[in-house]
């Protein structure tokens, strides 16, 4: 396997890891505040559909993304009302949201576009297009002839959509918010010991709703990325379990932002490799089952969860509704 091929794999790693990263960070905010969120998948899916639909009708990918974020926020609100206001079971609420999105996206897209549960193909400004950095070459032939440094720059660093760079910037931002601001401290505290936060006179309900809303925004961006950047339009069930992989990555990352970047890049890499079976065979000399690569993120997460390789300890108050004592 040559240098350029490795670069190509890493390039598609970044592209495939971006939605995982955004969803993983969404889960991170929510779960750090003590709200389990297995509805990441559903929120992403809803956002993917509405962003593609609105991007198609408006011809503007950014407007589409706003619609996607809106749709995701509506589902976040449902999750918040169910699990914070009415103190329902957060896991069941998440399951319901996933099905709600899976069903509604197809029903609505069939009604709007009548194309068997997909949106029309997006083109031009309806999609997020790659940003070519100054000095980078674009044509395949030019890249082939360039020197290694230029190849790295043109293939791997330049040429992603703006959402990829935004997602990467959200990682340090999340770290800063969680560990360097008052809001972050309170957010983490509310996931560990909500009673203490309440005693300090800070609203547990308010903080948790804020966390769930941030998760909604991030899932919205992730969904918009899937439908309007990675692919050109919405297709039925296009999230294909990415919400659950993000959840796995979150556990893998032990609920920390920088680790989340590492975990999602690893899982993105597995997805990228699974797309190129010829390369695996060429490198390792034997045939690796694609299904094994598909299952690997889940198997790794189970091993991590089992505590054989470092212990993953979730926020202490996670999943429990807060009841003010009277």
């Amino acid at each position: 396997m040559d240098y350029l091929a490795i670069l190509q794999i890493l390039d598609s790693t970044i592209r495939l890891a971006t939605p995982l990263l955004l969803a993983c960070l969404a889960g991170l905010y929510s779960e750090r505040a003590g709200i389990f969120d297995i509805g990441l998948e559903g929120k992403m899916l809803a956002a993917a559909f509405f962003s593609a639909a609105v991007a198609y009708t408006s011809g503007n990918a950014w407007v589409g993304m706003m619609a996607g974020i809106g749709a995701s926020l509506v589902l976040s609100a449902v999750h918040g009302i169910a699990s914070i206001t009415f103190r329902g079971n957060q896991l069941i609420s998440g399951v319901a949201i996933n099905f709600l999105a899976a069903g509604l996206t197809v029903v609505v897209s069939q009604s709007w576009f009548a194309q068997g549960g997909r949106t029309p193909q997006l083109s031009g400004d309806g999609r997020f297009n790659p940003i070519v950095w100054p000095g980078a070459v674009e044509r395949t032939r030019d890249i082939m002839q360039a020197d290694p440094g230029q190849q790295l720059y043109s293939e791997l660093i330049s040429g992603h959509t703006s959402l990829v760079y935004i997602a990467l910037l959200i990682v340090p931002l999340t770290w800063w918010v969680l560990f360097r601001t008052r809001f972050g401290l309170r957010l983490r505290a509310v996931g560990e010991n909500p009673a203490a936060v309440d005693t300090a006179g800070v609203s547990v309900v308010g903080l948790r709703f804020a966390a769930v809303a941030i998760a909604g925004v991030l899932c919205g961006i992730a969904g918009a990325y899937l439908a309007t950047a990675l692919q050109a339009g919405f297709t039925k069930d296009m999230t294909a379990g990415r919400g659950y992989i993000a959840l796995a990555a979150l556990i893998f990352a032990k609920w920390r932002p920088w680790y989340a970047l590492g975990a999602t890049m690893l899982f993105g890499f597995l997805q990228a490799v699974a797309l190129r079976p010829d390369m695996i065979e060429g490198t390792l000399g034997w045939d690796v089952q694609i299904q094994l690569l598909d299952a690997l993120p889940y198997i790794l997460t189970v091993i991590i969860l089992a505590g054989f390789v470092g212990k993953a300890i979730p926020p202490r108050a996670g999943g429990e509704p807060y009841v003010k004592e009277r």
Partner: protein
Amino acid sequence: MQKMPAWAEVVLVPLISLILAALISAIVILAIGENPWTALKLMVDGALGSTYGWGYTLYYATNFVFTGLAVAVAYHARLFNIGGEGQAALGGLGVALVCLYIPWPHWSLALIGATAGAAIAGAAWAAIPAFLQAKRGSHIVITTIMFNFIAAAFLNYLLVGPLKPTGSMDPATAGFPQTTFLPTFQDMFSFGETVLFRGTPANVTFFVAVAACVLVWLIIWRTRLGYEIRAFGHSQPAARYAGIGPTWIIMITMLMSGGLAGLMAINNVMGEAERLILNSVEGAGFIGIAVALMGRSHPFGVLLAAILFGFLYQGGAELAFWTTIPRELIVVIQALVILFTGALDNMVRMPLEAIFGRLSRPPKPDRRSAQSEPSA
């Protein structure tokens, strides 16, 4: 606050949740430009208007009874088994191995063998998450989700590789031998000229499902084990103090749960497809969650809820056939049922409790004393 009477808890809360779900579904149907009343009539006609409709409704219901019982049993120990999908898929593998590699002389013996194969395979798939929950404290919801995906990848591998007959392009096992074919309702209930349930997949497994309901009821409410499971579910510290071992309860409950989910395979794999195909479970494992919530984790409630969902499934297929409403509307209804009966339970319960609390309070002599009464 006064508690609600039992009938309100068992009947009224699920009923109101169902009505809310139906209302929102009706709004969705209106929003996509169809008439909800016509849609409902189509569904009732298509699913319940003929023995043909019933044949499909009961076939789907049989699947949902098993996956619903699986979720319900685990729920009694406050374990949320979301892995019914994977366990049912593995159950399919168990059934396929039993039917393909053992020469059965008669379907009745094959049914017993397949039941054992399905239950063992399903239970085995639930055993690892159960063990990890009991011994390592890994959250069972997350591990069972992961195991759904691992099961899907595993079956995908088997069906495009080792289990596929040579020369076949289909990702499926070979067809089962004729001696393992289960009698369908058409075989059982047609007399002479009158053919009932013509061509429908409902089969003898329905009675296995009913038997499973009775068995689960007996185990949960009439045995020492069932008592221990429920005690563990109500309060883990109290159960531990009473000498009930958490590891044992988690393991045995999840094994039962996984086994029940696996049993679904005798209906869809052995009874209907008569071979193991890719993605044979088709989401029935997840519908089990809605069924168990709707049925209040009681076997009789699960049976009723399963028939309701069987009706929705068959009715939804009819809708998709006759109107422009896609089948996925059923997924929306399913989601709403899970939302209202599961997550938003308190939204329905709190006002009801307030109403019943007011009704059952003795009449007050005058206004002033009523006001000074503590409100809680």
